[in-house]
């Protein structure tokens, strides 16, 4: 079942992580971005991320070299014609994803499997954009991909057993524990974590406790290794908000209504680790700057 080469479309944080994890198992990856500059930036991102891992002793320099040598950056979606598996990881927007799958369906060989890394959108709806809904499936990784040993494999209404088995096998070869999920907005992970993050933001907004203390309480109180506000910063506050909006749209439940503080921060461009500022401050390498608290948060 080994795939010699696969194509990953979208070189953001998730696309970078997926490319790197796949390349680490020996499979060649073509990472496709919209233009040369973005493709180059994605490769740099992968390299820098691995440098931080080396500093943390999770990886060796020779392993990094081997992994990078198996990832080829490209900027033409037609690359997808050459492989038997394409993994999509572009922005979390149903129209964009549908357009891409329509295009992939035209480009790809008839037996190529099309995988989406969406965390909230409907696989069935994405699949309907193609003429091969039996070969469309969701494989949801969590960030950072190389560290979180879980993959949610999500079947759309028409996904075939064969496609499901292939992807389940592929994900376990990446070292992930696979849980299978029937299509329903948010699956298991996003559906359960998002209301918790949102509630932590409400607690902060209502002045019940400081950000640091909220995280400490949940971390120590429930034996988690990260607090909800740090986690939201790491995920990207714009991402968190778009998941909530998708869940709200699909399920029409009040509990998925994004906290006003979240909306404000996204509008202000404080998106978390990636912009250096969210509920906490971060340096260029993404490490917490611990000394000062961000008192301005209250004045937002």
């Amino acid at each position, binding site marked *: 079942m080994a795939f*010699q080469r696969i194509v990953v479309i979208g070189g953001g944080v998730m696309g970078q992580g997926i490319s790197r994890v796949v390349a680490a198992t*020996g499979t*060649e990856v073509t990472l496709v971005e919209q233009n040369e500059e973005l493709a180059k930036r994605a490769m740099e991102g992968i390299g820098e991320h691995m440098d931080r891992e080396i500093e943390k002793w*999770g990886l*060796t320099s020779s392993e990094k070299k081997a992994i990078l040598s198996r990832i080829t950056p490209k900027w033409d979606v037609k690359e997808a014609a050459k492989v038997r598996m394409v993994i999509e990881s572009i922005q979390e927007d149903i129209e964009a994803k549908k357009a891409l799958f329509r295009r992939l369906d035209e480009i790809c060989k008839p037996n190529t499997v099309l995988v989406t890394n969406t965390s909230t959108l409907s696989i069935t709806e994405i699949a309907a954009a193609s003429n091969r809904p039996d070969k469309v499936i969701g494989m949801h990784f969590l960030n950072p991909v190389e560290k979180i040993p879980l993959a949610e494999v999500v079947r759309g209404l028409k996904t075939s057993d064969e496609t499901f088995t292939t992807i389940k096998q592929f994900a376990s070869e990446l070292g992930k524990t696979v849980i299978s999920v029937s299509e329903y907005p948010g699956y298991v992970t996003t559906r359960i974590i998002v209301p918790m993050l949102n509630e932590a933001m409400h607690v902060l907004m209502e002045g019940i406790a400081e950000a640091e203390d909220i995280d400490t309480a949940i971390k120590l109180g429930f034996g988690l290794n990260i607090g909800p506000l740090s986690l939201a910063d790491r995920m990207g506050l714009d991402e968190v908000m778009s998941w909530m909006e998708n869940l709200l749209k699909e399920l029409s439940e009040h509990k998925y209504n994004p906290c006003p503080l979240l909306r404000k921060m996204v509008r202000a461009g404080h998106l978390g680790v990636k912009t250096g500022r969210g509920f906490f401050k971060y340096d260029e390498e993404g490490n917490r700057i611990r000394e000062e608290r961000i008192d301005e948060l209250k004045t937002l």
Partner: protein
Amino acid sequence: MKILVINAGSSSIKYQLINMEDRTALAKGNVARIGMSGAVLTHKPYDRPEVKVSGEILDHIMAIEYVIAILLSENHGVIKDKTEIGAVGHRFVHGGEYFENSILIDEEKMVQLRKCIDLAPLHNPHNLRGINACQKILEGVPQVAVFDTAMHLKMPPKAYMYGLPYKLYKRYSIRRYGFHGTSHYYVSLRAADMLGKPREELKIITAHLGNGASIAAIDKGVSVDTSMGFTPLEGLLMGTRCGDVDPAIILHVMAREELSLHEANTLLNKHSGLLGISGLSSDMKDLMEDADSGGKKAALAIEVYCYRLMKYIAGYTGVMSGCDALVFTGGIGENAPLIRKKSTENLEFMGLKIDDNKNNASIRVEADISAGDATIKSMVIPTNEELVIATDTYELINSGAKQA
């Protein structure tokens, strides 16, 4: 009879075809990058130049097919027909407490082999893959498994128990197992031959110093203690492995640096040892060159390496209440006179004394390098694990597979 020796790793297979009539290798080679692009087979017949063949080698079965094909090929082959391969001997890293001897593999033994997977998840599954592949391609040819751990299984409980709750031994079989068994066995046998005495009358310390390194105390032919433990991480300093450390350090660093299990694991296995201390290289040759030109950290790494080795040599001499011979083997043991010298220089008081000229002259050859007045012999013996595997395989199928 000709015996194929297989050492299967995660993405590589090393092989040798050994002719048991004169115990020499007809061909040796390896398949690298199995399941990846750019897979390549490197093959060296004993009488012709090395060849490289690349191809799409997707799994261990295809790799074994390639090996058989090249052994049979007109230009590079060494046999005319598949049936000339009388048996296959497999290296199997961790046999747990099940296997004290090499075994002829059958259905029932395969079940037991699978039970050992948990003990060495990095090695055993690949060894099993190699066995499965050979069973498919060389159907009906006897397959034998030879264990890295078997040589050490007769070690007494006082040497293999850790100071941990006994429950852990019962529950997870946590104890010292030791590794490099075939190498320690081979060089101790050769040492006895060179000394002209039966192994049963000798106390021998064998130091296998390669990328991984371990040392064993072999009393009357029985390995009574060895430096590697539950995994190959314990004991001597190695290329990238730390060897002995205070276990609390790991917990401390994990907490301080917020390391995951995976990160802690690679820290100890891939970023430590000679590489970790020197910050330069895991290769002893590089470190000796750098130390020569004034490199302080390289010199320190060498010091730590030799100091720890010396402690084990002295300790094992005590354990056996004496020692007749100390054997150096493995890449560093066979090639580095400086290390042999430095790791024994304080031990003259107990009769271990190296002759500098003999030491410096003995590179990758069997040699006695002791000084004239030494009471403990120092020897260099190049190891040959493949020959041990082939010999065990040969003896096992000829004896009708009664052992184990």
